[in-house]
C-alpha cells in the first residue's frame, strides 16, 4: 500500500530524515515511535506531501506520490494533523463536511450521498450529538474525534495520524485508539506517530522505531520492543512485563538517574 525508499528531508541545513525505508501493507496499523525530535511528525508531513522530500521515493498504491494531483491524493489518503484549536467557530458538522471536499468539484454542493457519509462518520466517532456545536467549545478528546470523523468522511484507503492521543487522558486515549482499530478492521491502512510506547504496542500491528532520523527497527511490536531497543533509542532502562503467552503487556521504566 505504502512503499518508502531512502527518504531524506532537511530543514535548511538540518537533516531530519536520513534515509528512511519502510513499507506498509493493506489493513495494517503502523505505529511510528521515537523520542522527541527523532522525526516522527516530519515523516508524517513528508508522507502526505505537505513537506517536500529531498530525495527518495514514496510509492502509494503502486504509483509515485509525485504523479498524483493534490486532490487525487486526498481521495486516497486522509490526514489527522496534530491537535490544535482552530481560530474560527466552524461547527462540528462543517468540519466533518470538509472531508467531502476532495470528492466535490469546486462549486458542487454537498449531495445526499455526501451527507450520508458525513453522518456516518459522526456516528462512528460518537460525535453526532455534537454536530451543531462549535469546534472551539468541545473538549480535546472530542475535538480529536471530530478530526478523525473528517478523515473517515473523506473515505480514503490510507489514514495518517500525527500523535492522535497526545494531551488526552487515558480514557480518551483508549477511545481514540479503538476508533482507529475499527477503521483498520473496516479495511483502512493506518500510519500514526505516537508517544506512548505501551499503547502503541497494544494497538499497532507493526511498529517502526525511529532514532535520529533513521529507522532503528521495524516489525511486529513483540520483536521491535525489547529492553535493548528501549535503552538504545530512548536512553532509559526498562523492564518488559509479559502478559500470558509471550505478548508484551507493558514497559516499566526504571528511574532515570541520568544526570
Amino acid at each position, binding site marked *: 500500500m505504502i512503499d518508502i525508499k531512502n527518504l531524506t528531508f532537511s530543514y535548511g541545513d538540518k537533516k531530519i530524515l536520513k534515509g528512511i525505508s519502510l513499507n506498509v501493507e493493506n489493513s495494517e496499523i503502523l505505529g511510528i515511535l521515537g523520542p522527541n525530535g527523532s522525526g516522527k511528525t516530519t515523516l508524517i508531513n513528508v508522507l502526505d506531501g505537505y513537506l517536500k522530500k529531498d530525495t527518495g521515493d514514496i510509492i502509494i498504491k503502486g504509483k509515485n506520490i509525485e504523479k498524483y494531483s*493534490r486532490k487525487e*491524493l*486526498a481521495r486516497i489518503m486522509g490526514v489527522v494533523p496534530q491537535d490544535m484549536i*482552530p481560530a*474560527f467557530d*466552524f461547527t462540528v458538522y462543517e468540519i466533518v463536511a470538509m472531508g467531502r471536499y476532495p470528492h466535490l468539484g469546486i*462549486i458542487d454542493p454537498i449531495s445526499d450521498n455526501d451527507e450520508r457519509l458525513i453522518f456516518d462518520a459522526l456516528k462512528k466517532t460518537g460525535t453526532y450529538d455534537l454536530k451543531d456545536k462549535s469546534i472551539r467549545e468541545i473538549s480535546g478528546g472530542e475535538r480529536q474525534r471530530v478530526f478523525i470523523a473528517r478523515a473517515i468522511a473523506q473515505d480514503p484507503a490510507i489514514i495518517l495520524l500525527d500523535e492522535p492521543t497526545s494531551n488526552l487522558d487515558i480514557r480518551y486515549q483508549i477511545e481514540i485508539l479503538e476508533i482507529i482499530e475499527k477503521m483498520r478492521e473496516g479495511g483502512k491502512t493506518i500510519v500514526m506517530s505516537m508517544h506512548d510506547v505501551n499503547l502503541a504496542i497494544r494497538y499497532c500491528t507493526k511498529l517502526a522505531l525511529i532514532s535520529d532520523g533513521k529507522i532503528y527497527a521495524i516489525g511486529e511490536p513483540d520483536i521491535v520492543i525489547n529492553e535493548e531497543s528501549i535503552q538504545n533509542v530512548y536512553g532509559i532502562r526498562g523492564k518488559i512485563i509479559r502478559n500470558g503467552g509471550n505478548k508484551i503487556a507493558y514497559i516499566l521504566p526504571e528511574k532515570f538517574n541520568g544526570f
Partner: protein
Amino acid sequence: MKKISGIKFISISIVFFVLAIIISIGIGPVQIPFLTIIKELFDPNANGPYHIIIWELRLPRILLASLVGASLAVSGVVMQGIFRNPLSDPYITGTASGAALGATISIIAGLAALNIYFLPFLAFLGATFTTILVAMIASYSSGPKSENMLLAGLGISIFFSAIVSYLMYMNGKDLQTVFYWLMGSFSGAQWNYVYIMLIFAVPAIIILALIGRDIDPIMIGEEHAYALGINVKKSRLLFFVLSSLITGLSVAFSGIIGFVGLIIPHIVRIITGPNNRVVIISSIFLGGGYMVIADTIARSLNIIEELPVGIITSLIGIPVFLYLLIKEKGYWR
C-alpha cells in the same frame, strides 16, 4: 450570541441592499417620492420631471457605491481568510498604496485635469503593478506559508506610501486634491465606471462566491487544507489575484475607503459564523448597501462641501462593530 442561519442572513442582507438603493435614490437636494422612483425605475416609458436626476445623477453614483462596497467587503473576507489574519483588509497586499501612487502622479503631473479617465487608469495601473510585485515576491519565497505574502504586501505598502507622502510634500498646491482622493469619494461617478465594474468586478465577485468554500479549510490550517486536497499556494494565489482585481478597480474609481473591507466581514462572521460562502454572499449585499447609505449621508450633509465617504463609513460603522465585539467575546481566537 445565537448564530443566524446562512440563508436567513443572506435574505436579510439582500432586502437591506435593495431598500438602501431605492431609498437613497429619493434623497438629495431634490426629494423624490418613493412611488415616483419605482415608476421611473421599472416603467420603460416613464419620463417624468425626475427622470434625469434619477438616471443621470443619482443612479450611476449609487450603483458605483454599491459595487465598490460589495467589492471591498468581499475582498476583505477573502484576504482575512486566506491569510488567517483578522487585521487583513483589501489593501493589505499593497493595492491601495500602488493605486495612491498612480493617482498622485496623475494629479501632480496634471494628467487628471486633462481627461477624467487618466486618474482611474493610472490608479488601476499602480494597483495592478503592486499586486504582481507582491505575488512575485511571495512565489519566490518558499513554502505554502502565508506570512511571506503578507509581509511583502506590508513592505511594499509602506514603501509606496512614503513616495506618495514625498510627492505630496513637494507639491503643496495639489495637496488637497490628492488628500481628498485618498479619503475616498464617489463624487466623480459615471455610468462608464459602473459598466467597467459590471464587466470586470461582478464576474470576479461571482467566482469568489462560488469557489469561496475552499477558504474554509485554509482558515483551519494550511496542513488541514493540504490534507483535504487543496493546493494551498496555488489556491491562495488565485484568491489573491481576484480580490486584488476588485480592490484595484474600486480604488481606481473611488479612492481609498476604509472600514467596509475590514469590518463588514467581521460583522457578518460574528452573526453567521465563519462559513465562507455564506460570509461572502452576505458581505456582497451588506457591504454594497452600507456603502450606498454612507455615500448618501456624505453627499447630503453638505457641511461646507461634500464629505469624503470614508469618514462616514467609519464614524457610523465602528460603534456598531465595537458593540458586536463586546457582545461576542473571543470571536477571533
